[in-house]
């Protein structure tokens, strides 16, 4: 808190105070205006009930309704599981990529890293639609499976399922997990591995005792950078999820756009935000424990 109170320190010279206000002022203002204020408005909405345009009244009905609707809770839980699976698969796939880039790719590493990032420059929607083409009944995967003779007629179950959502999300997010792991491995002092080998440690043992623990901050950062945004995901389930792939985010969108029940939509959003708070604590804690 000390640094925040500096501008109001009575002993600070006036010029110093002005300078700090000039630097801190605009971002603080923007944060208040475009982030805290809307969040407050949203919180206010939760204490109302009724539909937009159909008369709103102050009440706790929305809370009661959310509390009693177990389908909503189940969906939030299921969405969390989808996000969790997505994040874990991303780590499983991204770790070897990052490891290869840092330890094996040599002079090609920057080229390869760029190649991994370039797809992320194309439209998010386009990348999801590409998976629709791959997974659809007329798609690449079905055609291939037909060709090798594993199935006899195109299977529609590949698309419009929770698996399709996870596959697509994993594809979209892998580069964003590979980057922090890459950074963590890159930052690691490689001489530590020589020291470990020198002390008799075979390569796999060095990986488990040195490389993996030292790259964990990157892994945790990667995990959170996928888990947090995918929990509120609604575009991907909409396009490739079908009825079974629906996520919590889709229902929030429904409340705002179709049911026009902004109070419930606001409450659902706030609940999700609160559900993510422990994640931030996990991140801070891991930083403290793992940072030497």
């Amino acid at each position, binding site marked *: 808190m000390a640094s925040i109170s500096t501008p109001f320190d009575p002993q600070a010279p006036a010029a110093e105070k002005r300078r700090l206000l000039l630097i801190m002022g605009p971002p603080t203002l923007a944060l208040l205006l475009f982030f805290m204020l809307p969040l407050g408005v949203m919180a206010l909405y939760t204490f109302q009930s009724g539909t937009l345009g159909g008369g709103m009244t102050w009440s706790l009905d929305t809370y009661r309704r959310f509390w009693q609707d177990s389908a909503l809770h189940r969906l939030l839980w299921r969405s969390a599981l989808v996000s969790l699976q997505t994040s874990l698969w991303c780590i499983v796939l991204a770790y070897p990529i990052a490891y290869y880039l840092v330890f094996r790719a040599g*002079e090609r590493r920057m080229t390869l890293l760029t190649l991994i990032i370039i797809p992320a420059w194309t439209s998010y929607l386009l990348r999801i639609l590409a998976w629709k083409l791959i997974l659809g009944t007329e798609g690449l995967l079905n055609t291939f499976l037909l060709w090798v003779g594993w199935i006899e007629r195109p299977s529609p179950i590949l698309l419009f399922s929770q698996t399709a959502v996870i596959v697509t999300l994993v594809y979209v997010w892998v580069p964003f997990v590979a980057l922090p792991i890459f950074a963590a491995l890159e930052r690691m*002092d490689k*001489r*530590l591995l*020589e*020291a*470990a*080998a*020198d*002390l*008799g*440690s*075979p*390569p796999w*043992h060095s990986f488990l*005792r*040195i490389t993996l*623990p*030292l790259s964990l901050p990157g892994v945790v950062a990667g995990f959170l950078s996928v888990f947090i945004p995918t929990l509120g995901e609604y575009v991907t389930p909409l396009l490739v999820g079908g009825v079974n792939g629906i996520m919590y985010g889709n229902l929030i969108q429904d409340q705002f756009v179709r049911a026009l029940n902004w109070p419930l939509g606001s409450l659902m959003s706030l609940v999700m935000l609160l559900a993510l708070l422990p994640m931030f604590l996990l991140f801070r804690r891991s930083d403290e424990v*793992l940072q*030497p």
Partner: protein
Amino acid sequence: MAPEYAVELRSVSKVFPARRQKGRETTAVNAISLQIAPGEFFTLLGASGCGKTTTLRLIAGFEHPSSGEILLQGMPITNMPPHKRPVNTVFQNYALFPHMSVAQNIAFGLTVQRLPKAERDKRVHEALELVRLPDIANARPSELSGGMQQRVALARALVNRPKLMLLDEPLSALDLKLRQAMRLELKNLQAQVGITFIYVTHDQEEALAMSDRIAVMNGGRVEQVADPASIYNRPANRFVADFIGETNFLPGKVAAWENHRARLAVGRQTVWATADEPLPVGRAVTLVVRPEKVFLTRPEKSNGRLHLQGTVNQVVYLGTDTRYTVRLEDGVALVALARNLNGDGPLYPGETVHVHWHDYDARVLQE
């Protein structure tokens, strides 16, 4: 039969391939042969880029030689991976594991060997006592000073009771006072544990103070291997003479050779110098003499010995010594270092002096 050498290098070379298309391949180590006796404190001394660290890395197993053989106690280990060699290294930057406590760092090698916990704890404790840091077992390396980290790195290597310990400029990151104290401590420690040490440094003073033998390296080759006094007093060639300490090089011509002594003509005068090999009269050679072995006397006090004549050019007072630069008759500059004892008193710039030395303190280098 007990092996004669702790370590033996037989004509070991290391060539690094060219980086990208432009670069040229570099020969870091060029056909080096060394024999290091058990229990010896052996130093590889040289400027940066001379191949000393590469030699150490070849012995540790981090690099594999392009040609030649490395033997540890008579066993070939040339291509053995580092984790299988009974050799431990103290790294220049210590390379302590930042996510482990001091005790975990030291126990690392013992954990790999799957030693029982009780035995492990006992040896970690002993190692910490040995490096005189008994109370920091639970600290993280980042909480320690450079000197303490250095001791932990030492303990981490010593605890494994290796056949051979490699030390890569372990003192270079410490400040001068600590470095000088650690020299003595390291030397005593080595005598105490009796492990063969191979020590890499660019600091000649460090090498002279600690080593049983020194290998002076230059351009991937070993220029001379000898004990510190021989390296200093009987340098094998111009490079060694120049690298270790300060030296005067004087061009001369052989006037006579008899009984391991040569009379040399330097300018218009002649002086005596030691020369082990017979030299033909008229051969152009270089005379080498250390500044502190050079005496300067006023002409009236010269006792008729063979001498060179010159003029005092510069006088620098250094406390214990005075450093004189003398210009000889033929224009060659010579440095003399004189102890400031109660004697004749200082010489002054512009004075004419006679320059002489004991025959055995000046040596002839053939080039």
